[in-house]
């Protein structure tokens, strides 16, 4: 466990290295001591780092599930007394989070949604692990693009969102806790298949 520390270490590394989004495989113990003091954070930069944190964990978790288990739900384990009727499969958890990412972040960036999104779980023709992971990864690119639009002046600007309006800051930030909710479910699905989530390895 000590998951929280790892999340923060990641964040610290991102800050220190100035590579907020695509930081490669930081080792948990590598202290960023030699770096100069970072510039004052902008709302854009620290929101972007939150997105990077969930992006890294979530994508790695999705990649950790073998393709032949991608349609796993705990229902298949037939655990006595458990209730998993109608829950999402692992694949649908991933597709759902990606779809929500697109809905929120594209409403900020003005980009068109990907083709084929008909509901909360995204395009039904996305079947293979590779297709689903690409759909997921591409969604985070819009997160970084949306975060880059934030300034201290515009964060409260009300933007159109699904027949309503919402503050720009909320639209950019909301997908992060949403994704963590589903990430928490996915790590349990991984463990049920004997897989320790990548972010928890070495703890």
């Amino acid at each position, binding site marked *: *466990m*000590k*998951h*929280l*520390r790892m*999340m*923060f270490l990641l*964040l*610290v590394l991102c800050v220190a290295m100035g590579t907020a989004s695509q930081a490669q495989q930081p080792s948990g113990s590598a202290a960023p001591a030699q770096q100069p003091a970072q510039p*004052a*954070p902008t*709302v854009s930069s*620290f929101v972007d780092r*939150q997105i990077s*944190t*969930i992006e890294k964990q979530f994508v790695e978790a999705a990649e950790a599930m073998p393709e032949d288990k991608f349609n796993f739900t*705990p229902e298949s384990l037939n*655990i006595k*007394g*458990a*209730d*998993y009727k*109608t*829950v*999402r499969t692992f694949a649908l958890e991933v597709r*759902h989070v990606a779809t*929500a990412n697109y809905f929120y972040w594209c409403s900020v960036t003005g980009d068109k949604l990907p083709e084929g999104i008909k509901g*909360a*779980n995204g395009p039904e023709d996305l079947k293979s692990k590779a297709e689903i992971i690409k759909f997921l990864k591409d969604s985070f690119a819009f997160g970084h693009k949306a975060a880059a639009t934030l300034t*201290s002046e515009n*964060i*409260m600007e*009300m933007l159109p*969102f*699904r027949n*309503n309006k*919402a*503050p720009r800051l*909320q639209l950019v*930030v*909301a997908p*992060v*806790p*949403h994704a*963590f*909710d*589903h*990430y*928490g*479910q*996915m*790590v*349990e*699905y991984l*463990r*049920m*298949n*004997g*897989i*320790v989530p990548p972010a928890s390895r070495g703890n």
Partner: protein
Amino acid sequence: MKMKRWKLLFLLFVLSLTTGLMGQAQTAQPTGPVTVSAITESEIRLIENDIVPAAEAMPEDKYNFVPTTGEFKSVRTFAEQVKHVATTNYSFWSAVLGENPPVDVSNENGPASIKTKAEIVKYLKDSFALGHRAAKSLTAENMGERVPSEFGKRPRLFLTTFTVAHAFDHYGQMVVYLRLNGIIPPASRQQR
């Protein structure tokens, strides 16, 4: 966990904004521009309204439950999940306020003396009271200010919202624990 949950979350959020009923505030709210304080408080309320009922939904005799089918060595019990979330809440939201945590946060799973379900749920609920205070303290001027926290100096806004994301991570695990015990998470019940 169930379909369209995120839509519900967002609708709740938009409703809370558009009706001026931020959370439980029943009295008339000043109308005016949306503030960073209101936005962050609504985020805190979203997780609070999910995780507190989830904590309450687990029977006391299952509070030390951990899954066993699969690779679950050294994972937190349900009780430890709740205590860990609450402890993190206390730690980071106190930092936002510039206060010492009102509880001992030296163990990331909280004080060993907090054992019963009633004690643990109270510990969790009280942590959210601190969160609301932290959110209320945010302004456009101070949200970017780095304040000392357990993990070094971090912007107030980051500490406030990251704590919500952290809690959702563990909430996602807790709903799996609940379902393994045949309990539909309260937030998912209306969707059956």
